């Protein structure tokens, strides 16, 4: 007999208040008002928002190969702390997740850790080299059941290869998630190309290098009738192209990172490599366009692009520093700050962008589900009134490279229920799912 939990007096994403939810045997047993708490652990949710468990479409867990940066264990602890019940683990590990063997390994590590549902992403090309297709079918049919394929970190720049990948994944309802970066236009690039790069003398990453690939890919996706996902959209121009493509009926989805919703390239003036990321931080105009696009649905989802790095990869010159920022444990707060506190969106759209749609893009059947009896209990309980100051040293991730360090942000995860088990309770890491060792 497992523990049952009664979440009492919650506000739903849709704004309904005083909702009780009884969690038993991994599922939502009952939803109602003034439910009896007999035998259940009561979680007081007065004033708290109860969301479908968050799903990250874009996470780097680094294992296998870069366990000094992150492991599946530490990365999924961080995910749980951030309110996530599922993460998509990107393929750029060492070895690259380009075979059924590697994706099954990552999947198994996730099951063993028991903090969230780990969905491995398969590489599009062997070794991310952009030359030959990886065995996409074998990864799809493996126990990991891969549906999202990406060379993230590197662009599938060869148009023929991209076309074939888009076509091929249709066989198993997969999606290609493209890292849109024209390689020749970004050789040696260190930051956004614009007024700040001109002053700092850093080689620029022009917006057109992202936009030209997105334009090509949406046309390709339309031509072959495939599903395309655009990773970490960062420019106003990209938003325009995606909007245009959606109007034409192209089956394209897009993601934005929390950091691109808040930070700009002005921060590079500090020369602190914690602000070095790919795609780079852009301008205020881009931030504004990205926020509007996320609010109106042109950009479907928020993906963290959580990219932990060991400190020595950031404690160095800008040009030598690694690109990437941690994000799992700050995503909710940053999005609340940038989108909800600004009145651009509500918690219902938040749930859509951080749970329902990412689960659909990744074809994760048990995630992003309605708050209804019988559904798997993947839930995130948020205190929207809380305020906290970001301290990377207190995070569960191994990465200390948070660009939000020192920033005061709203919103705190009070509890995360993963398949009915509280991985986070009272704002603290609890225990992994008891079934973790099984399977």
């Amino acid at each position, binding site marked *: 007999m497992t523990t049952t939990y009664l979440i009492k007096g919650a506000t739903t994403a849709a704004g309904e208040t005083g909702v009780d939810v009884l969690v038993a045997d991994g599922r939502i047993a009952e939803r109602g008002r003034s439910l009896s708490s007999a035998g259940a652990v009561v979680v007081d949710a007065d004033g708290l928002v109860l969301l479908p468990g968050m799903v990250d479409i874009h996470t780097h867990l680094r294992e296998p190969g870069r366990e000094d940066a992150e492991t599946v264990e530490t990365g999924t602890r961080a995910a749980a702390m951030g309110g996530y019940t599922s993460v998509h683990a990107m393929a750029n590990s060492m070895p690259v997740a380009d075979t059924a063997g590697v994706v099954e390994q990552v999947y198994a590590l996730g099951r063993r850790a028991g903090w969230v549902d780990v969905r491995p992403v398969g590489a599009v090309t062997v070794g991310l080299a952009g030359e030959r297709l990886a065995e996409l079918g074998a990864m799809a049919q493996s126990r990991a059941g891969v549906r999202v394929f990406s060379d993230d970190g590197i662009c599938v720049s060869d148009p023929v290869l991209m076309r074939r990948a888009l076509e091929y994944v249709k066989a198993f309802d997969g999606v290609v998630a493209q890292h849109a970066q024209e390689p020749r236009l970004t050789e040696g690039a260190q930051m956004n190309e614009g007024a700040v*790069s001109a002053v*700092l003398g850093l080689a620029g990453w*022009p917006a057109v290098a992202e936009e030209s690939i997105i334009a090509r890919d949406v046309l390709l996706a339309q031509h072959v009738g495939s599903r395309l996902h655009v990773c970490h959209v960062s420019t106003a121009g990209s938003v325009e192209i995606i909007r245009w493509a959606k109007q034409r009926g192209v089956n394209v989805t897009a993601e934005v990172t929390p950091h691109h919703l808040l930070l700009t390239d002005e921060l590079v003036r500090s020369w602190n490599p914690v602000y070095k990321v790919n795609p780079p931080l852009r301008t205020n105009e881009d931030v504004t366009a990205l926020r509007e696009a996320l609010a109106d649905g042109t950009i479907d989802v928020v993906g963290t692009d959580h990219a932990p790095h060991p400190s020595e990869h950031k404690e160095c010159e800008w040009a030598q520093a690694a690109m990437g920022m941690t994000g799992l444990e700050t995503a909710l707060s940053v999005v609340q700050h940038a989108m909800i506190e600004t009145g651009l969106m509500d918690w219902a759209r938040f749930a859509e962008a951080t749970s329902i749609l990412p689960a659909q893009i990744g074809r994760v059947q048990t995630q992003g589900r309605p708050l209804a009896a019988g559904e798997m209990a993947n839930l995130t309980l948020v205190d929207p009134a809380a305020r906290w100051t970001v301290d990377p040293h207190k995070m569960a991730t191994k990465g200390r490279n948070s660009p939000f360090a020192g920033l005061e942000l709203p919103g705190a995860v009070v509890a995360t229920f993963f398949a009915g088990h509280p991985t986070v309770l009272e704002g603290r890491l609890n225990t992994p799912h008891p079934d973790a060792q099984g399977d």
Partner: protein
Amino acid sequence: MKHLLSTENLSAADAIRILDTAEEMALVGEREVKKLPALRGRTVVNLFFEDSTRTRISFEAAAKRLSADVINFAAKGSSVSKGESLKDTAQTLEAMSADAVVIRHWASGAPARLAASDWIDAAVVNAGDGTHEHPTQALLDAFTLRRHWSQIAGRASLGEDLRGLRIAIVGDVLHSRVARSNLWLLTTLGAEVTLVAPPTLLPVGIADWPCRVSFDLDEVLATGPHAIMMLRVQGERMNAAFFPSAREYARTWGFDDDRLAALEVSAGKDTIIMHPGPMNRGLEISSAAADSPRSTVLAQVRNGVSVRMAVLYLLLSGDDSTQPTPAQEATV
């Protein structure tokens, strides 16, 4: 002023203080005993991640004339072969009680990174970082300009700024730390700057820069600027399609013999030709131009020592407290 990292944020008052101090330092260079005891017992480290004998010996001469101990640290390491990390090197220098680190680095921002870190407490002097800035080069250029034009105007240069001067900076602005540092400093001091370059060698995003931009060197020369600053151009740039050939570059953007001759009959009677060195003779500047009486190339080298003495003196001689002591009040 704790560090000298860029000219972008250098105030006019601080810049003039450096130039005025450099005037006093220049007098020392003319004496039989070319040495001052001001930095006795202090250690200056020349930390060079990029070869530059000229800049290093200029800083070395400056530090030695001020009686500082000089340690030359040629740190190997490039974007390809990483050597010891900047952090480890800095902590080594800290352990050796370096009072100032003069750093030349191929990576833009490395000196600022060093100064902002808690790896080292020393004063940091940027001796050229990537394609970002080269502040002491700009200061010695401003010093050279100020001396030349106040002499012609029959004024003492002490305390003067550069108001009224029109200066053309010509060449590979995109990759030039000298161009950036000069643009900020010269405009801070009141000069008008025109950048002249092929469009491929101008950065994107300079619409707000406080200067004019021209693609036509002859047109700019015809206006009789007070100085023409030629930037070094790497011949290999043509391999990345910045310009079609060295010959076309030299003909269109180089300071050649025809342009030198045109200057003689134009409004630019006293126009000087500056170059930070090392020169590519025949590419951005002809030999006749480099060796003409208008050329200030050697004066720039000479002034470099004075300006670097001034910078080291101003960064290292005082303490940070502003509380005057009784002894000071009695003797001032």
